């Protein structure tokens, strides 16, 4: 450790102002603070500080994402081998999934962090950790068949126009990962929905080739429901077998890479809630809002989507993933405690509303969260205004008394 510290101290002057690599100062600083906690001490105010920092916070979220990511990788392999009718080991399925997903993660990080490094250097600021989470979320919410160049393009768009133009981490209005997805959703809709993008049917880098089984259907359960002509839908897996609540809960269904397993997502939720990094109020109220809206639709129940039970809604699509990892983004969500209840509830409501009533696209969580991202400041405004009114009333009443 001392050796490493000495090496860092030795090369440090080259990256300072006037040094050979001064243009890479932010990058160097990023790596230095990654390796060693900065030894900068308090100049004003409190002399001691809580040891929490942005790095720990973001790493905690990354840890929480791991179960969903790993399961997602496995599920990509599982769905693939199911589609081509081969029985292989768990490790083969996982290996196939890793091969398929890893390039997406690499592209997202290289493009996003590259842009962040450049902006940090231009602004002469430290590199911010926000993209560590966004960069992981982006591939996790993509269909497996989204081409790498699309992910790169969308990531660049989201980082520049979704975040940096507003001032960087902490200033963005919309969740960066969802901006990426929304960009692709509107720019290349055929690559973001339908029954050809959620299951990899071809080989990956030469592994896992095969021919599709008879009766193959690559539609997600929500896709099946959206296109159903009867009120009762018998959901099927890619090979035509029926699927039930258990498969939905565990996540052995087609869908965006890491959104299918409610079990894995709940593990992540446990990490976020246990550490206190995410707001339990938002999480809980998203589920409450979704349940309320689903029950309301059940009353009418004129088509398949309206007849879905609240539990099915929560188990399918990106509902749980959005509730746990997207809605709880503190920067783009409501920031007052009262506001969090309203914000979360409305995400749940709109998520189901869009899902059921939107004829073009079977999923609603992305749009619901982006919509509420926009309204979060308004919700907070009214909550804060309540406090202000109380204060003004007190001022008024004492003036009259005097």
């Amino acid at each position, binding site marked *: *450790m001392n050796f490493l510290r000495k090496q860092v101290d030795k090369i440090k002057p080259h990256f300072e102002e006037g040094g050979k690599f001064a243009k890479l100062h932010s990058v160097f600083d990023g790596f230095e603070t990654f390796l060693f906690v900065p*030894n900068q001490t308090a100049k004003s*105010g409190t002399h001691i500080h809580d040891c929490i920092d942005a790095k720990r916070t973001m790493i905690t979220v990354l840890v929480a994402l791991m179960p969903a990511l790993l399961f997602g990788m496995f599920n990509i392999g599982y769905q693939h081998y199911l589609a081509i009718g081969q029985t292989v080991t768990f490790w083969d399925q996982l290996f196939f999934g890793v091969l398929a997903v890893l390039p997406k993660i690499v592209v997202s990080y290289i493009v996003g962090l590259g842009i962040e490094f450049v902006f940090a250097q231009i602004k002469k600021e430290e590199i911010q950790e926000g993209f560590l989470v966004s960069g992981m979320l982006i591939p996790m919410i993509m269909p497996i068949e989204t081409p790498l160049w699309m992910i790169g393009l969308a990531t660049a768009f989201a980082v520049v126009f979704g975040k940096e133009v507003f001032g960087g981490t902490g200033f963005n209005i919309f969740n960066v990962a969802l901006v990426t997805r929304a960009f692709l959703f509107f720019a290349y809709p055929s690559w973001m929905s339908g029954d050809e993008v959620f299951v990899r049917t071809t080989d990956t880098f030469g592994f896992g080739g095969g021919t599709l089984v008879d009766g193959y259907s690559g539609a997600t359960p929500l896709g099946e429901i959206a296109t159903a002509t009867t009120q009762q839908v018998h959901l099927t897996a890619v090979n035509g077998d029926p699927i039930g609540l258990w498969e939905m809960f565990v996540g052995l269904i087609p869908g965006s890479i890491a959104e299918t397993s409610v079990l894995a997502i709940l593990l992540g939720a446990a990490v976020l809630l246990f550490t206190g990094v995410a707001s339990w109020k938002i999480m809980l109220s998203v589920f409450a809002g979704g349940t309320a809206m689903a029950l309301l639709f059940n009353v009418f129940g004129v088509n398949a989507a309206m007849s879905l039970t609240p539990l099915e809604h929560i188990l399918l699509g990106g509902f749980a993933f959005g509730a746990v990892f997207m809605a709880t983004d503190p920067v783009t969500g409501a920031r007052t405690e009262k506001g969090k209840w309203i914000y979360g509830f409305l995400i749940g409501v709109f998520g189901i509303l869009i899902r059921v009533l939107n004829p073009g696209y079977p999923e609603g969580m992305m749009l619901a969260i982006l919509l509420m991202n926009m309204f979060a400041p308004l919700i907070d405004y009214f909550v804060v205004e309540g406090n202000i009114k109380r204060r003004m009333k007190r001022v008024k009443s004492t003036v009259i008394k005097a």
Partner: protein
Amino acid sequence: MMAKRIQTKKGLDIAIEGKPKLNTVELPIPDIIKIIPDHYPIIPKLSVRVGDKLEAGSAVLFDKNNPDILVTSPVSGEVLAINRGERRKILDITIAVDKTISYKSFDSIDWKKATADNIKTALLESGMWTYIKQRPYDCVANPALTPKAIFISTYDSAPLAPSYEYIVKEEAVAFQKGVDIIAKLTAGKVYLGVKANSDCNIFTEAKNVEVVRLDGPHPVGNPSVMIQQLEPMNKGNIMWTISLQAVLFIGRFATTGSVNFTKKVALSGPEVRMPQYYQTIVGAGIEDMIKDNVFDEKHLRYISGNVLTGTKIALDGCVAAADNQVTVIAEGDEVHEMIGWGMPRFNKFSVSRSYFSWLLRNKITPKFDARIMGGKRAIIMSGEYDNVFPFDIFPEYLIKAMITKDIDRMEVLGIYEVIPEDFALCEFVCTSKLEIQKIAQEAIDYMRQEME
């Protein structure tokens, strides 16, 4: 009658090693003392020149805005030097102390019959006035105004704080006398904040005050908490706050007719070998209590006051005039903690539970140093401040209004109800490492400049 009770839930008590033992070492009056203008809430102008002879109680400084407000010398002696820094800012007035102290005699007054104006004159002349603080702005009180109420907190809830019950123990008479005099300065009430479970009769049975029991985590002992709960500050209100030590200064002055600026200082903190109290005098250096009494094999930080709101001082510096505490912690600038963000950090304190030290909070006392433990960021996390801020205010919104220096917004969001020290815990827990007390101080200074 049952005493009033204020109970708060929001806040945070931070356990740190080095709580001062209830034992006092009497330090001799040093050969040299320093009057440091920064320790007083005034814009300093000199009343003395090098070579002037002073008595204890002679004016050394006066306030540029109100020349009646004086800082007086705690000792008799000769002005040795007036040290100046950048732009001729006065850093300190060094006084060589006489072998035997002679005291300036002030006109004796009958305190019982004295009017508020008589009292004000006496307190101004003797240099007591600089210890009376005013809300809004937490500046020195304007003697031309009458406050709506006066607040004295005898409970310092900050980490390792001195026990005022111990400090007041032998000065019951001076305390009551001080309170009696202060009570004449307001048409309203004098509130005396007392620790919830205090059995100190001097406080709980004090006359001429309304005793308020304070129950909850830090910052429950801050006067702002009492003010908000009892007489919330509105725009245009004037309130005064006086520290317990200042009450004693005033009380002693009233009983003896001369100034007596001796005080007990609690030496505390994890780097102190023998944390205890020292009897010393305003302006005395800290070296006498520090010598051979700290673990100085590493870089140390000396703080006048507590770890949350105190001021960093040098080893040859002195305790701020209004402080009863010195804290010594490790500076930590020679520590390079590897991949700290990835470690379990069992011996580090965090409220966030993302480190695992909270599981062992009762078993391991966390170690602290002065590192800020991270890089500065924009505000990311929400709700952090609310948990440690026991006021009916949205701290994050007020802080943002302060950063943008938006006076109208600050007013409606409650700026008059709080002072920088109330944000200390927000600053402590902040993931984004914002210097919130500095932000608040700058905003309040700006506001005062624009409004007055």
